[in-house]
Structure formats: C-alpha cells, structure tokens
C-alpha cells in the first residue's frame, strides 16, 4: 500500500509562500500527503517546516501557492476550517487548557451534545476513555490537565486528533520530549492510524526515527522545498547533505584548540526537580557544548550558572572565585556573559538603535558622573560592528530592522564589549540563514583562539559536532555523557541524549 500510493493525495501544498514583514519564512512549501502513508518533513531549524505546518493548520493563510484537500483546491480560513477538512495538528508545544479536564481538553468546541444543546458529559468521558484505551494509556478523563507530564500531554493531543476522526495528522516533533518507551508507544499508534488510511506528516530531527516509520521523506532548506524521495530510495547521508546544502567544514570553521587554565568550574550543581548533580569545567580557549533534546535542562544549566535561577545545592566558580547563588550581577562582575536563546525577547531592546543596544551591558564604563557619553557609546558600537562584520545602514537604526543573523551579532557585540572571560551562548544560530551562520561560527572560533572560554548550548547536532572541543550530553536534568571532539558523532550524542542503552554513558 505504501509502495503504491492512492492516486489522489489527501492533502497537497504546491509552492506556498509566506512572509512576515521582511522575513520570508516560507518561499516554496511543496508537499503531498497520501492516505495510509507516513511522510517525514525534515530540515534544519528555520527551514520553514513550522510555517508549512501552520498553513496546513489554517493558522496562517499563504501569500501564494495552492492547497488542495482530496484533490479540490481549498482555502482554510482558520483552525476550525482545517479541522473540518479532516486535518489535525499536534504541535511541538502541547496546547492544553490547564484548568479543564482531560476530556474537555480533547473535545473543546466539539463536545457531544444531548437535548437542548447541552454538553453530554457522560458521553464525552466515555468516548475519551475509549480513545485512551485504544491508545493503551491509563489516564483519568476527568482529571485536570494541569500537571500532566509532557508525554501525557502529547497523548491528550493525539486523542484530540483521533476524536476528530482526522484524515490527516500532522505531528510537529512529537518525540522531542519523550522517553524511548513512550516513543515506541507513539509509533504503534502511528502504524495503527496508517492502517486506517490516515495520512501522517511526521516532523522530526531524529533521522533514525524518520527512517523507522516513514515511507516518504521531504527535505526543506532555507524556506524552500529541496526534494521528496521514497525512504527506501535515499540514505541518511543524502538526507543530511540535502538539509545542510553545503559541506560541513565551510559551515564549521574550527581551529584546533590548545585549552588553557580552567575558567568555569561547576561542582555538583542541582536545582530541585530540574537539574541533578551537574559537574563540569570549561577552560580558556575551548568551546564546550551542551547537547541534548529540548527540555533536557541545557538552558537551565546556563541559567543556574549565571544566577538567574537559584541552585538548590552545588558550587559554581569562575577563575577560582566562587559565585554567590542567584546573582547575575555577581556573575557579570566575575566576567561571565550570557547570550540568551531568545534574542528578540531577552537579548535586545528591539526599538533601540544598534549603538544603544551594543552599549547596554557596558553603561558603567561609558558614563562619567552617572551620565552616559553618547560619543563613547557610538565609538564602542562602531568598533564592534566592524569587528563582527555587521551589515547595517546607520548605527542609530533600530535593531528590529536587522536580519536575524545581524541581530545575533549585536547581542554578541554587546556582551563581548564587556571583555568577558566566559561566554555562555544559547542556540547561537537559531533562525539564522546559513551564510550568516558560518560567519557567527567563524566569530566564535576567532574568540576562542584569542583565549575566551565558551559554553555553547545548541540543538543542532551538526553545529555541536562541528564547533565543540568537548561535548556534554544532557538528558532529563543530568549529564549522561562527556565526549571529546574526536569520539563524538551523531550516533554517540543521540544515544546519550535519548538514553538508548548501548554506550549510553561515557
């Protein structure tokens, strides 16, 4: 059946484009989903996968391009229309109502009714119990959704789709936060759905999963469709090459490092329920990467080291001096800089100019008698703009006018202007186009060669493998492996990150 797909696809999207202001999130979204087939959509972060999903969900209306359902061109005016067309979406972040019951979450807006348009609670709970039983999970339909584990939330989302008798099921990275057992359970569900003729769109970064359950693979890069192939007719290497679109050594210019003395030492760091007994060090002149799945606790390590979150036990010291608990100011004074993951919310003041943003973390040095001297502010910004090869019009232009990659350079410049000894950088190239990515990597490499210590958090495995001297793999709040550059590859890192038995701990 999967070899010989039915002639009429359930859903097709042809050359769909979507822009947000100047940002072209999707340039050519093309895909065809056949009944009874699991279809993988792969691509790096920022490749346009999520935008394509939101078009199928009816959340975004494409600027151009054609969407068909069962061969008929359609316009989905909203999520309800998409659901009416038989398309159900399971988002990466579960979207539940914490105050309502599991059953209500599943049937919101579609509750079974009895006489007088009243909600038939008994029927609703019965039906949910039936769906949950079919999924093989023990979950009380009348339980509040607040406090459900991520895996159970995902189950609720799947039950939602099943209850709507979806013909097309889109899963946006459903396995990102699941354990191996839960993934296996999910795969059984997907197989069962396929057998019922449902078309499944499966988005995942884990290529082994993609090859395990999908019959067809579509690859996207930089907002564009690259190619679609039968899973049997393509290799993992070919997929990766199509995703990345260029050779890795151009993208990851890494100079072999000669690490110096220890800059950051973390001893038995714990935060109740989040981090458990984290110990590691970062030395002068090396990049240490924190790898792991979303939710493994990588950003939490950065937050606890920098003092944003209090640690419940453990010690953090910078150049031998212990950092007080819960004090970002003390961390900054000790020479630590943190470039956060979300640069628009946490890294930049979007409406301020490049000069102001660059100077923000160095105002103390730039002021005399409490007044900031704008000439020095401009000099500082100009010098970093040229060192980081920033592409800009004028220094006074608001940073919101810059591209993502150049915004990231401004955030980098802001912290580098403080001349830190340790740079913590969370997802350095998320949402940045490939060209600028390589530049950011070159900048990092140059900084490290000059003696900076870098702790890098990244979800992009190629980046981790390409840039790091050492890799710490995290899983569920613990460090499960420490790998030297030479011994790390996609397989060893993913195994440690997902807790697969073989060679799990280093």
């Amino acid at each position, binding site marked *: 059946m999967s070899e010989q797909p039915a002639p009429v696809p359930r859903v097709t999207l042809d050359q769909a484009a979507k822009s947000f202001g100047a940002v072209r999130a999707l340039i050519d979204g093309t895909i065809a989903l056949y009944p009874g087939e699991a279809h993988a959509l792969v691509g790096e972060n920022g490749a346009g996968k999520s935008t394509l999903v939101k078009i199928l*969900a009816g*959340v975004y209306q494409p600027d151009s391009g054609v969407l068909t359902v069962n061969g008929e061109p359609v316009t989905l005016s*909203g*999520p*309800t229309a998409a*659901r009416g067309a038989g398309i159900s*979406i399971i*988002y990466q972040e579960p*979207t*539940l*109502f*914490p*105050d*309502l019951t599991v059953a*209500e979450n599943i049937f*919101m*807006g579609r*509750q079974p*009714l009895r006489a007088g*348009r*009243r*909600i038939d*609670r008994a029927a609703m709970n019965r039906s949910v119990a039936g769906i949950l039983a079919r999924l093989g999970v023990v979950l009380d339909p009348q339980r509040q959704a*607040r*406090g459900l*584990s991520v895996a159970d939330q995902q189950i609720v989302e799947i039950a939602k789709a099943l209850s709507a008798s979806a013909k097309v099921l889109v899963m946006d990275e459903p396995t990102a936060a699941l354990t191996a057992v839960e993934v296996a359970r999910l795969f059984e569900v997907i197989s069962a759905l396929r057998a019922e003729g449902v078309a499944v769109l499966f988005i995942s970064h884990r290529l082994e999963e993609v090859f395990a359950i999908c019959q067809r693979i579509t690859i996207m890069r930089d907002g564009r469709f690259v190619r679609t192939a039968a899973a049997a007719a393509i290799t993992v290497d070919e997929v990766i090459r199509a995703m990345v679109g260029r050779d890795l050594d151009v993208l990851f210019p890494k100079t072999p490092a000669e690490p110096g003395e220890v800059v950051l030492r973390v001893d038995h760091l714990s935060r*109740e*329920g*989040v981090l*458990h007994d984290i110990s590691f060090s970062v030395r002068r002149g090396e990049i240490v990467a924190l790898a792991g799945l979303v939710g493994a606790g990588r950003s939490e390590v950065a937050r606890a080291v920098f003092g944003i979150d209090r640690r419940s036990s453990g010690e953090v010291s910078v150049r031998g001096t212990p950092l007080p608990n819960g004090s970002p100011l003390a961390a900054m004074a000790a020479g630590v800089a943190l470039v956060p993951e979300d640069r628009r919310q946490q890294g930049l003041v979007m409406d301020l100019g490049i000069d102001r943003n660059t100077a923000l973390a160095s105002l103390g040095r730039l002021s005399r008698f409490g007044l900031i001297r704008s000439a020095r502010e401009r000099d500082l910004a100009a010098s970093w703009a040229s060192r980081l090869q920033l592409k800009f019009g004028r220094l006074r232009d608001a940073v919101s006018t810059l591209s993502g990659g150049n915004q990231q350079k401004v955030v980098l410049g802001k912290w580098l202007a403080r001349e830190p000894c340790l740079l913590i950088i969370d997802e350095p190239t998320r949402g940045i186009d490939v060209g600028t990515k390589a530049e950011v990597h070159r900048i990092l490499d140059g900084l490290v060669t000059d003696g900076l210590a870098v702790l890098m958090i990244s979800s992009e495995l190629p980046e981790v493998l390409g840039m790091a001297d050492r890799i710490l793999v995290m899983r*569920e*709040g613990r460090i499960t492996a420490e790998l030297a550059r030479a011994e790390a590859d996609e397989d060893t890192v993913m195994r440690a990150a997902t807790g697969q038995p073989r060679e799990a701990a280093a």
Partner: protein
Amino acid sequence: MTVLASPGPAGTGSRFARAGALLRAREVGIGVVLLVVFGVTTAHNHNFADANSVQQLLSGAALIAMLGVGETLVIVTRNVDLSVGSVVGLSAYVIGDLFSHHPGMPVILGFAVGIGIGAVIGAINGFITAALRVPSLVVTLAMLYIVRGVDGRVVNGVIIVPSNIPSAFVAIGFRTFLGIPWLAIIAFLIVVVVAYAMRSFRSGRDLYAIGSNPEAAALAGVLSARRVFTAFVFSGALAGLAGALFLALHAEVDVTAGTGYELLVVAAVVVGGVAIFGGSGTVVGAALGALLLNTINQALVASRVSSFWNEAIAGALLLGAIAFDRWLSLRVARGLRSAEGAHRDL
C-alpha cells in the same frame, strides 16, 4: 471586636490543614466560614438571627451576588469589569426618574430599561476589549468614570424619593415568599441558571478555555472575541438589573448609588474562588463570596463594631484568599516538580 475578628481567620486556619482535599471545593470552605461567622455573631447578639435581620442580610447580598455572577463570566475569560458599580447607579436613577415623570409606567418596563442600559454599556466595554484588544482593566475603568459623570449630569442634584416609585415596584424590594426576600430568590435563580449554563453549554466552557489558555483556545477554534463580548454584555445587563433592584430595595436614589460596588464585587468573586487570571471558578462560589462579605459586614454592625473595620476585614479576607490560592499553586508546582524528578529517576 477582637472576639469577632477571630472566627474568620480561625475558620480559614482549619481549611489550611486540609488544603489538598478542599482544593476543588472552595464553596465548602466558604460555607464553613459563613456558618462560623453567623454562629458566633448570633451567640453575642441574638437579634442577628431574627427573620428580619436575616432577610436584610440576604437582600443586600443578593445585589452583590447578582453582580458577582456577571463579574465571574468576565473574570473567567481573563478580563475584569470595573464599570458595574456606576452602571448600578445610572440604571437605578434613570428608572426612578422615569417612574417620577410617568407614574403609570408598567413595572416590567422599568426592569427592561435598566437591563437595556446595562447591556449597552456592557456592549461598548466588550467591543473595545474584544475587537480593539484594549486591556479591559483600562476600558472598564474609563467606563466607570464616564458613566459616573453621565450619572452626575442626569441626576443634577435631584434625589428620587420613595413616594415617586410605584408601590408594585417597591414591593419587589421588601416582599418575601415563604420568608425569603424576593431579591434573594431572583439572585438565587440567576445563580442556578448561569451555573448550569457555565457547566453544560459549549459557550460556557469556551469562557473557561479562553481564560485558561488564550492561544490554545484560538487553536481549538473558540470564537474568543465573540465570547468575551458576550460576557461583557451579560455583566452589564446584570448590573442594569441590579440597578433596578437597588431602586426597589432602597426606593431612594442619589448620585452616590452603587459607588464602590465594583471593588466589593471583585473582592466577593475572588474570595469565592474565581481565579483573578481566569480559567477557573464558579458563579456559585462568587455568590457565596458575596454572601460571606455581606454577612461579615452585617455581623460587625450587629456587634457595634466601627464600620471602619468592615472594609479592613473585607480587604484582609481578600488578601487571605489570594495568598491562599498562591500558596496552593506554589505547593502544587513544587510537588509536581519533585514528582516529575522522582518519575525521571525511575
């Protein structure tokens, strides 16, 4: 006064101990506190349990409870309606003024006018909040002042006196049925009907969904703007009705009628267990909260405690209720965090 102040906190204290079990039944807790306040006050002043005194208590609470029902609909959607107090005043005065000039006007028309005025003001609130996406706190605060201003202009120093109001209308304010004031019966019916609707109709569940997670509500295809608009219209209409009943109860209206009700209502609703950030709470809880605040109020009067304590105690109760909620949710969050940690350890 210290004797009287103690029952409230003591009652709350016993709830602290069984916090987990009562988490889902704030109504039970309020009921207990209510009985304690009532019992202790009666022990000190036997007149407090008089039929007359109880009827007064219920009539006063009925108005706040009615407003509390509308306010609950709004707060559950993560909004707030601060204009209700001024709507009560305007509605009461306009109806009274109509009766003064047209003595033969049917009673039912008086109610229709009050409800109409409230619904129109609610519709304006709802439109600006839902369609133009202005925070409801600002919108309804502005509306509070605007309506007060209009009220002052309309009243223009003239006071409505009982002799101008048809006796059939005033009768609604003081008549009883089987010893229960009509006002309380009306409020009770409203609470029952709305409580049922909030539980059993999709539109009611939509309100909870919107307040619980607005983004998820949009993804589930809930028509958020329409529902929020309707909630405001409803709150306004109930405030208009409360204005008519205010006139029936007091038969006397001046420009200060309904002043300060908005905060009293919000306090009652929050004490009644409606989460101020939306998503949870019931109109039954809100009505009980109104009854509790009014009972404490009357208990203080009956015990000859200075009326200043009245507001202070209402405030303390509010703080207590919010602190209690916060404490509970922190405890739940911490519990979940370590439970999840423990789960992962497996």
